[in-house]
């Protein structure tokens, strides 16, 4: 199959964040960046689908400044065949603008599947994949927690609150990937060497109007420091009392 995966470069989710002096973004100094978690599940899912199909091509796309090329190389070191960098000064906070630029590039690519993360860690929005599907005019499954291709059609599972849907869909299609589909592999040394020689094409992104911008970034209020009431069953009466009088949940 021919599969495209759109990946975002985001800071490591374990980081302690500081706000930049502009007050409108995080301070990126000293942070580690990598392929966004859900997007890395999408890369792994694409590789496994093609391994299972016994062939095909896997292509990664990223829109952003030159530093996204690191993420594209990383995906190629995992086994992706080639990469496309859509160059932009920065990644906008406007998911529709990103989706338009990606769709313009993906259109005519002849992909059976285009995979995305369910949402990106930084934007936590879940917009780009679904909107890209609309711009491409293809079927779309959002937040798939299982994904297979059987007899030329897609099969997916999607979690609802307290239930799940089992879905089938025609190809070509866009699928956004939830946890559960696949844990990303680590690149092998051989993979890292091979990635250096794989094709990475860079061209300007066709970003239109940007209609969503970040005005302010703030750290949320800290929780008051925790309190240990005591040890073992002896602490239960105190806990029950506090749940009644202070937390008022009993």
């Amino acid at each position, binding site marked *: 199959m021919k599969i495209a995966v759109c990946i975002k470069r985001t800071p490591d989710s374990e980081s302690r964040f500081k706000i930049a002096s502009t007050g409108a973004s995080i301070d990126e100094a000293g942070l580690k960046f990598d392929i966004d*978690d859900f997007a890395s599940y999408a890369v792994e899912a694409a590789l496994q689908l093609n391994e299972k199909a016994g062939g095909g091509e896997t292509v990664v796309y990223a829109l952003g400044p030159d530093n996204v090329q690191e993420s594209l190389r990383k995906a190629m070191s995992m086994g992706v065949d080639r990469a496309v960098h859509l160059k932009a000064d920065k990644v906008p906070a406007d998911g529709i603008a990103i989706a338009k630029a990606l769709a313009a590039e993906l259109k005519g690519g002849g992909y059976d599947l285009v995979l995305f993360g369910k949402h990106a860690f930084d934007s936590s929005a879940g917009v780009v994949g679904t909107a890209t599907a609309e711009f491409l005019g293809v079927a779309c499954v959002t937040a798939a927690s299982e994904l297979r291709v059987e007899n030329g059609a897609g099969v997916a599972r999607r979690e609802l609150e307290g*239930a799940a849907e089992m879905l089938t869909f025609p190809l070509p299609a866009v699928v956004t990937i939830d946890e559960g589909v696949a844990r990303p592999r680590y690149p092998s040394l051989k993979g890292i060497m091979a990635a250096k020689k794989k094709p990475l094409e860079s061209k300007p992104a066709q970003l239109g109007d940007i209609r969503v911008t970040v005005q302010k970034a703030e750290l949320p209020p800290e*929780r008051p420091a925790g309190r240990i009431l005591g040890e073992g069953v002896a602490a239960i009466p105190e806990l029950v009392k506090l749940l009644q009088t202070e937390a008022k949940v009993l």
Partner: protein
Amino acid sequence: MANVLVFAETRNGELRKIAFEAVTAARQLADATGGGEVHAFLAGAPGVGAKAAQLGIYGADVVFVAESADFAQFARESFAATIADRAKLDAYRAIVLGFSAQGRDLGPRIAAKLDLPIVSDVTEIASSGDTLTVKHPGYANKVVLTLVVSGPSAVISVRPSAFTAKENAKPARTETIAAVPAKTPVVTVTEIKEGAKGRPDLGEASIIISGGRGLKAAENFKLVEDLADAFGNAAVGATRAVTDDGWRPHSDQIGQTGRQVSPQLYVALGISGAIQHLAGMRTSKTIVAINKDKEAPIFKVADYGIVGDVLEVVPALTAAIHEARKGH
């Protein structure tokens, strides 16, 4: 003055809590524009229109009812097409949905169809002229972003529980509208797998009892269930360590890559408090933790901690809660 269109989400023919919260958010926004109307979109199998009056209670002026046998299930492409077509008939200031499984799916479809900007998982909305300003927790709740959305209209999805449903009764008029068929190839629902019955959803529960690897074995989740029962109507959650091991379904997972919850009371049993777990529950009103390691990071965020063995402390706590709630 501008009207606001809101998606009134249902499941199995019943309006969901998020529908009332979304109507409340839409009402606030319509009022802020200087007295616009709230138009709710209610879609479902024939008969769903009977629910329209409930939306009036929370401030809907008009309820557009689209009934179709195909709408018994979440017919995402057709819902999106019907809402988008309806939106073209009015200059809506915004189209509001919940950031729920349905709303997350529909929002970007509608925004793309209408070429509108979209902001997701919003906790506050302010409007002034052609500018909307919203708050949205990004970076898995670690950074709160204030986003500015330009233009006369936008799609907004609101975070569950961020807008408390408020009564503001209007004599909602009902209008029947036709279901618009899907304009893109569709996905077909082959089966709905219902989760455990008799417990509230994690996103709606006011009390959540969660278990981690410290419970030692899948069968010990019985202790978590029993404590949830003692509290009455509590939901049961889990860490990724537990869902990875298959002790609990993935849908029970709380955290950065699982569900994000904010209940009145969150009880963490045998959970270390990894940063990715905290990302999903740190905004809970009160946090209780029981862990045998007094250095466990969960104690840094727990309002009340007990250092001890869950297998010993939890059954005793369950008995004590039953005792304290006698008469309920």
